[in-house]
């Protein structure tokens, strides 16, 4: 009981402070007005369907990124020749922010879901790749040797030693990647898919509130919703990590 009260202390103080600071101004959103807006947005279903659209894009882009980055990371981590050839390419593209490739993506894929998914995939790709490479490289050499001396074939060694040994690191990369993917989708939707309403996703919704209806309360509702989703995603992944790799303390 006491612990719950302590945990709630900071959020409650923040809300009270916000209400007090904002009450002097007519335009500034206040907790009370934001709450009203939130209830209205939930009632119409706009908020949830906007979030659903964005989440769908995030999962699609994330899945594409993982399907490409994990095998490539394993190849780069276990085969020095592959790494030597691909590392310069990866390190050249890695610092280029996802938003910087936006113009190209819109040019190639138009301004719909496809472009948003591509941006997400690009953003999530690198953290998954880098962690997969590191995970494979950090495998204790004696584990691979033990498998060798027990007469395992190369494919079996990869499946039952290399993969599980690198798995904790791969999952950490996925957790970071998913966080970045969620950040990228908001930014991507601000620019892509200039459609009104929920079909543009939560990012597009924020853009509409900002540029057309100038509804600050709605914008704040979107911001809070984005934060809550990010928090939930991260907790879910941490939980999944604890379930799938119980031997690893990460």
């Amino acid at each position, binding site marked *: 009981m006491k612990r719950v009260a302590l945990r709630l202390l900071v959020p409650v103080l923040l809300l009270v402070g916000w209400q007090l600071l904002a009450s002097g101004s007519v335009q500034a959103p206040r907790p009370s007005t934001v709450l009203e807006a939130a209830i209205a947005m939930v009632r119409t279903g706009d908020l949830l369907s906007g979030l659903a659209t964005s989440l769908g894009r995030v999962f699609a882009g994330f899945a594409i990124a993982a399907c490409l980055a994990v095998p490539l990371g394993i190849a780069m981590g276990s085969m020095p020749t592959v790494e030597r050839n691909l590392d310069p390419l990866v390190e050249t593209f890695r610092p280029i922010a996802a938003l910087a490739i936006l113009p190209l993506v819109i040019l190639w894929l138009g301004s719909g879901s496809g472009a948003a998914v591509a941006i997400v995939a690009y953003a999530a790709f690198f953290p998954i790749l880098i962690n997969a490479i590191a995970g494979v490289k950090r495998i204790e050499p004696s*584990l691979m040797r033990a498998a060798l*001396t*027990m007469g395992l074939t190369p494919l*079996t060694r990869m499946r039952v*030693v290399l993969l*599980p*040994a690198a798995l904790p690191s791969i999952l950490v990369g996925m957790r970071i990647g998913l966080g970045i993917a969620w950040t990228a989708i908001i930014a991507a939707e601000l620019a892509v898919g200039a459609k009104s309403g929920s079909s543009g996703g939560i990012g597009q919704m924020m853009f509409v509130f900002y540029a057309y209806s100038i509804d600050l309360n709605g914008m704040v509702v979107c911001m809070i919703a984005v934060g809550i989703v990010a928090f939930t995603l991260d907790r879910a992944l941490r939980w999944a990590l604890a379930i799938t790799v119980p*031997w690893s303390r990460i």
Partner: protein
Amino acid sequence: MSTPKIRLDAVSKFFGGSVVAVEKLSLDIRDGEFLAIVGPSGCGKTTVLNMLAGLEPATSGTMMLNGKPIEGPGAERGVMFQDYALFPWRTVRGNVEFGLVYGPAGQGLSPAERTERVERTIEMVGLTGSQEKYPHQLSGGMRQRVALARLMANEPEILLMDEPLAALDAQTRVILQDELLRIWGQDRPAPERRTVVFITHAIDEAVFLADRVAVLSSHPGRLKQIVDINLPRPRGDATRRSGEFARLCQSIWELIREEAYRATMN
């Protein structure tokens, strides 16, 4: 005398072209014998074991196993590593059954026979009740037993052990030395025993366990002498207290004392 199980003939190992780890090592290892290799640090003990395991090629010389050259790792040679090399994502049972499930050692075994052998091996090393635990939940001594069980479950012809007791405290070591001899089969007649090559830096351990002790010198690693250990089996605490045991330890110590001092002082 019967043909040797393993024959090393003028085996040398250089690292980086110039560093000589092992030089012209010739050694016959008999079927069913417990051979210990001792020597000061830097004598290439681990290198010899890795070459026998097929994990490192020799730079020159020949290594024969059952009359055929050793060209790589093989399931008939089981290795116990100094750091145990347990798979952290597998439980005690998962580790012990590993070679039987994924390697050639389990071929021809029905699932029931496999389970039976795994459980019997776990019981043999005294880990019954801990089958579902992960390596990080175990003490050093227990991990060592898991590694030993994983090795024994595969029933390899030859057991290659690289300082398997080095990381343990003194009491656990003594207990596991006794256990190791029991599991190896010192109560059984010699032809039923497996061939063991056991690397250690502890002279008393080598004398207590082995039929013969190969003493290596360092920089480069050369075979200095082979000492026959004719202490009666089964061995136990009475062996450790005997005068013959002390005399053998002393004579091996004298063989390597000078170099050990030099290595320590440098």
